[in-house]
C-alpha cells in the first residue's frame, strides 16, 4: 500500500478510537461461527425427522450426551491453541475415574475393598489427571518428544492399565458423591451440562481476558515472539498439559456418574470425536487460532448429529458412515467459507 492510500484512510476515519471496526468484529464472529448455519440446518432436519426433536427433554439429552465430550474438547482445545497435541486425554478420561472408583467401591462391586471416603476418591481422580498431565507436559515440552507419537503411546499404556487393573470387570455401586456430577440435575438440567458450560465459559473468559490465556495464543501463534516478549513459554505449556488432563479426568467422572459405573472401555476412541469437534469448531491444529465458542459449536454439532441419527429411521448400521460424511461436509464448508481451519 502506498503512502497516499494510508493517509487517505486516516482522514476517512477521524474517530476510530471509539468505533471498533464493526466489519472486523462481524468477520471474527463469522469465522468462529461457521458451524452455526450447519447447526441450524441440522436442527431443521431434526425437527423434520422427528417432532420429538424440539422437546426440551430431548434437547437436554443432546446437551447431556455432549457434556463429557465437551470437557475433553475444552482440554484438547487448550493444548491445540498452544501448538501441541494430546491423544492420551482419552486414557486419562478412563483411568482417572477408574482408580478413584476402585479405591472407594466395596469389594463386592469390584473395588479394592479399602472403601475410602468418596471425597478422597474424587481427590484421587483429580490427582491422577494432574500426574498424567505433568508427565506428558514434561516429556513433550522439556524432553521434546514428538507429541503425536508420545501421547499415542501414553494413550495405549493408560488404556492398557485401565483394562489390566479391572481384568474385565466393572466397578459399580458407587457412592452418591462420586457420581453426583453425572447423575444429578439442577433446575432440571444435568449438573454435567452446567459444569461443561461453565468450563467452556471459564476457559473462554480466561483465554480472552487473562494474561496467561493471551500468552497461550501468543505461544501458539509465534513461539519465538512469545519467548522474546518474556512469556514463560515452557511453564505455560506444561501447565496447559496439566490443566487439560485434569479436565479430562473430570469429564471421565461425568461419564462414570452417568452410567453409575466405571468400565474398562471408558474413553476408548473418544479422542477422534474430540479432535473432530475442536477442528470443525475452528481450533487450528497449527496452534494459536480458534476460540472456545467455536469449539462449543463443534461439540454441539457432533451431539446433534448423534441425536438426530438416533431419532431418525436410518438403520443403526449406517450411522457411523453418515457421521463421517457429515464431518467431511463440515470440514468442506469450513474450507469454503475460508477460515483455513481444515
Amino acid at each position, binding site marked *: *500500500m*502506498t*503512502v497516499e492510500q*494510508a*493517509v487517505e*484512510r*486516516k482522514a476517512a*476515519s477521524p474517530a*476510530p*478510537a471509539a468505533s*471498533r*471496526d464493526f466489519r*472486523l*468484529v462481524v468477520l*471474527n464472529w463469522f469465522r468462529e461461527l461457521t458451524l452455526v448455519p450447519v447447526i441450524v440446518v441440522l436442527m431443521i432436519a431434526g425437527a423434520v425427522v422427528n417432532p420429538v426433536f424440539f422437546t426440551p427433554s430431548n434437547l437436554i439429552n443432546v446437551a447431556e450426551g455432549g457434556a463429557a465430550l465437551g470437557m475433553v474438547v475444552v482440554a484438547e482445545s487448550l493444548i491445540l491453541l498452544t501448538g501441541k497435541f494430546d491423544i492420551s486425554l482419552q486414557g486419562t478420561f478412563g483411568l482417572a475415574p477408574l482408580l478413584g472408583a476402585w479405591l472407594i467401591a466395596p469389594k463386592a462391586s469390584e473395588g479394592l475393598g479399602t472403601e475410602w471416603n468418596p471425597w478422597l476418591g474424587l481427590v484421587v481422580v483429580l490427582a491422577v489427571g494432574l500426574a498424567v498431565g505433568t508427565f506428558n507436559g514434561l516429556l513433550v515440552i522439556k524432553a521434546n518428544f514428538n507429541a503425536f507419537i508420545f501421547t499415542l503411546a501414553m494413550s495405549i499404556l493408560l488404556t492398557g492399565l485401565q483394562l489390566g487393573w479391572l481384568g474385565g470387570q466393572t466397578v459399580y455401586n458407587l457412592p452418591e458423591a462420586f457420581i453426583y456430577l453425572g447423575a444429578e440435575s439442577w433446575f432440571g438440567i444435568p449438573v454435567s451440562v452446567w459444569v461443561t458450560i461453565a468450563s467452556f465459559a471459564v476457559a473462554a473468559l480466561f483465554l*480472552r*481476558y*487473562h*494474561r*496467561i490465556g*493471551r*500468552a497461550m*495464543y*501468543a505461544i*501458539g*501463534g*509465534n513461539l*519465538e*515472539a*512469545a*519467548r*522474546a*516478549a*518474556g*512469556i*514463560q513459554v515452557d511453564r505455560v505449556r506444561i501447565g496447559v498439559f496439566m490443566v487439560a488432563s485434569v479436565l479430562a479426568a473430570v469429564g471421565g467422572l461425568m461419564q462414570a456418574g452417568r452410567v453409575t459405573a466405571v468400565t474398562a472401555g471408558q474413553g476408548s476412541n473418544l479422542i477422534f470425536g474430540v479432535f473432530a469437534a475442536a477442528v470443525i469448531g475452528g481450533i487450528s491444529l497449527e496452534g*494459536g*487460532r480458534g476460540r472456545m465458542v467455536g469449539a462449543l459449536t463443534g461439540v454441539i454439532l457432533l451431539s446433534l448429529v448423534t441425536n438426530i441419527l438416533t431419532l431418525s429411521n436410518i438403520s443403526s448400521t449406517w450411522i457411523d458412515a453418515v457421521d463421517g460424511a457429515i464431518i467431511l461436509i463440515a470440514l468442506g464448508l469450513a474450507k469454503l467459507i475460508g477460515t483455513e481451519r481444515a
Partner: protein
Amino acid sequence: MSGLTSTGPATNPVPVGEAQNVSKSFGETKALVDVSLDVKAGECHALVGRNGAGKSTLVALFTGLNRPDTGAIRLAGEPAPAPADRGAWLARVACVYQRSMVVPPLTVAENVFLNRPVGDSRSFVNWRRLRAEAHELMLEWGFDLDVDREASTLTVEQRQIVEIARALSTGARFLILDEPTAALEKAAVDRLFDRVRRLREGGVGVLYISHHLEEIYEICQRVSVLRDGELVLAGSVSDVSQGALIAAMVGSAPPRRATEIEATRKTAGLGDVALELKQLNVVSRTGSVYDLDLAVRAGECVGLVGLQGSGSATVGDAVAGLVKTRSGSITARGVIGYVPQDRHQRGFAPQLGVDENLTHGVLARISSRLGIVSVRRRTDIARREVQRLHIVARSLDQPVASLSGGNQQKVVVGRALAAEPSVLVAINPTVGVDVASKEALLDAIAEARDRGVAVLLVSDDFEDLRVCTRLLVMVRGRVTTRFDRPPWDRQRLIGAVEALEVAV
C-alpha cells in the same frame, strides 16, 4: 509510554547499553569475537556490516535472548539481569528484531502490548484500555493502523510498524532497531526517523542496524562496523566517509574493486531472446513488482540490482514459477535453472547428500527409461559440480546440513547449473561464500553465459555484477536506472540502488 514524553536533554553519561569484550560462537562459527560497543543516552549508534557479520547476534546478546560465551553485557550501567528474568530485560531494552516477532493471530493492539499489562490489573486484560492506548500510541507516532486488525492480515510494512510501536511503547531507555526499514516506503522511513530523533532528544539511546548506509548519515552520530564477528571500525559518523565505511565492511579490497567493477562487455554474439517478461505485475510481501518489461537473450547476463524489498528477488521467483503473477507474461525457452534467495527455505534438502541435492533438478536425466537412477551418472554430475565450484565436503554423500554455509550455497548453485539450463535465474548466488570460492562461482556463471545460457542475475552484492553484460536497478518495484556499458561505477551504482538524489 511513560518516560518517552519527557523531553529534557540527556546529560547522563552512563551508557544505556554496553557490550564488554563479548564473544559468541555457534558451533564452529565465530559469530562475535571480542566485541566492545556502547550506546549512550541520547545518541543513535549505527551498527553496520555485511550479511552474517554478527550484527543480529549482538542484538540477541543485548536483549538477553542469548548469552555471550565470554565478556559481559551491561544495561543502564548495571550488570545484565538474569537470563530467565525476561521482565527485567524488557524494562531496560526494547527491540525491533530482524525476524518477525509479530504473532499473526493476534490483533495489532495486542501485539503492541504483548505480555504487558495495560490498566490496573496485572493479570487481566482490559480490552478497552488496551485498544485505546494502542490507538493513542498509533496517533501519537503518526501510524495509521487499525489497532483491531488481525496481524496476519498486515503487509510487511504494517507488521514492521507494529514492532516499532511495540518497541517505542515499552518506555525502555535503550532501543534497538535491527534493519527496521528493509521493507518500508521512503515516506514511512522519514516518519520513522522523525520518531527516532524525538526519542533521542528524550534521552533514549538507539542502536540502529541497516544496510542502507545513507540512512546512517541521516540519523546516526556514531558508527561501528562488524566484519566476520570482529569490530573493525568505530567512530563518529562525521569522521567516516561512505567509502571508508564500505572498505571496512568488505575488508581490504582486491585491487580491481576500487571504484569500478570490471565486467565483460558483450554485445555481439548474442542469441535469440530466451527469457521475456512483459508488463509483469506481482504482489508480494517480500517486494512487489510493477509493470516490468525485460528480455534476456542467450549468451547475455542481465544483472537486476536492488535493495531487499525492491522486488528484484520477486522477479527471479516469478520466472522460476514460484510466485503467482498478478498480470503480465513470462516466456522462457527451455529449462530454467534457479538459485533461490534463501538457501534454507528453497535451496536444499538438509538431510540428503551433496550428490543427491546436486541432481534434484536432473532426476529424469540421470535415470533410465524405467526411472532407475544411475548412481554412476549421478556421481559423475555431482563430481563435476563439486570440482567446478570447489565444494568442500568429506564425501559426495555427506548431508548438506553438515556443510559450512558457504559450501551449502555452492551446492545450491551447483544444482542449478547441473540442470544445464538455457535460462539461469540466480538470486544472490554468492551469499556467504569466501572470496576464492566466489571467483569459482562467478566463473561458472560466466562460463554458462558464454555457452549461450541467458542469465538473469539478481544481486545486491556488487562483486557479483562483474559477470553481467548489462544492469537494471530496481527501486520499490520498478526499474529506475539502466547501465548498459561496463565497467560499472560503484558510486553511481550505489546511488541508483539507494535512490539518492545525487545519483545518475
